[in-house]
């Protein structure tokens, strides 16, 4: 009985935060709302049974990638962000794909029979997850290493480009 209650609370929170995100005038507050959404997403993963995914979500997405975005605040003064008015035309443009996403999600939710679903052991256990991803998909991991070196080279180009006005 507790689970449907929590899940509907999360759904309502996500909707409220989503609307709040577009109502903010300042970029910092948008970041803060987005941060709360990221942490909430981690808690939803926890309810889906994967503890490790929650930790990964909070450490990597909320902890690292959003910090990277937040450092932009130090790069530019607030006025440069205010040029674009994010509130009216952009809202409609961004609402269409997200509404499509929500509609497909609801369709899947109502057509999919949950009782047929059997979760694999890798959802719950980190050991099984490790066996799955490292033994069966080694090429993907190795490719990811090269993808991760891409930003490292991009930093050099970025620094080289900004050498003159530094």
């Amino acid at each position, binding site marked *: 009985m507790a*689970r449907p209650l929590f899940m509907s609370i999360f759904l309502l929170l996500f909707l409220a935060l989503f609307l709040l995100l577009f109502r903010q005038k300042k970029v910092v507050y948008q970041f803060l709302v987005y941060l709360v959404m990221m942490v909430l997403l981690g808690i939803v993963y926890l*309810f889906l049974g994967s503890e490790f995914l929650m930790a990964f979500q909070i450490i*990597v997405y909320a902890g690292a990638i959003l910090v990277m975005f937040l450092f932009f605040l130090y790069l530019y003064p607030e006025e440069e962000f205010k040029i674009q008015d994010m509130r009216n035309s952009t809202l409609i443009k961004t609402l269409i794909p997200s509404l499509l996403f929500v509609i497909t999600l609801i369709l899947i939710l109502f057509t999919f029979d949950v009782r047929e679903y059997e979760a694999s052991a890798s959802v719950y256990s980190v050991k099984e997850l490790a066996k799955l991803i490292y*033994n069966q998909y080694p090429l993907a991991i*190795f490719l990811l290493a090269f993808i*991760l070196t891409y930003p490292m080279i991009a*930093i050099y180009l970025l620094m080289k480009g900004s050498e003159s006005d530094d």
Partner: protein
Amino acid sequence: MVRPDEYVPTNYLSVLIMVIVGFIFGLGGLIFGSFVRPRFYYKEKLVPYECGNEPSGLPWQKIAIRYYPIAILFAVFDVELGLIYPWTVGFSGLTSTGFLVMIGFLLVLLLGLVYDLKKGILDWHRR
């Protein structure tokens, strides 16, 4: 194991309560303090500190781009850490491919770090 559609993470309840207690602890101190502390404000007191001078403009200017690579490199290495942890926990179940792929992964990332250090990204006194 419980079915995924009936699972409620009950052992995380104490972490949630800890978050709430920690928050209330800080907030409670502030609220209690607001009853006892003096309120005597005037304009000069509320000016940000700048060695006694009048502040020259707002602080939010464009600051050196040097700090931005640190944030990007941190994100890269954090993803790496996130991938290392399941590997360490499932270590005894790994085959030799599973073992070697992570060693290769780490070496490629180390190569990237060496490249950045050679190019002097993290040197503050380049010129």
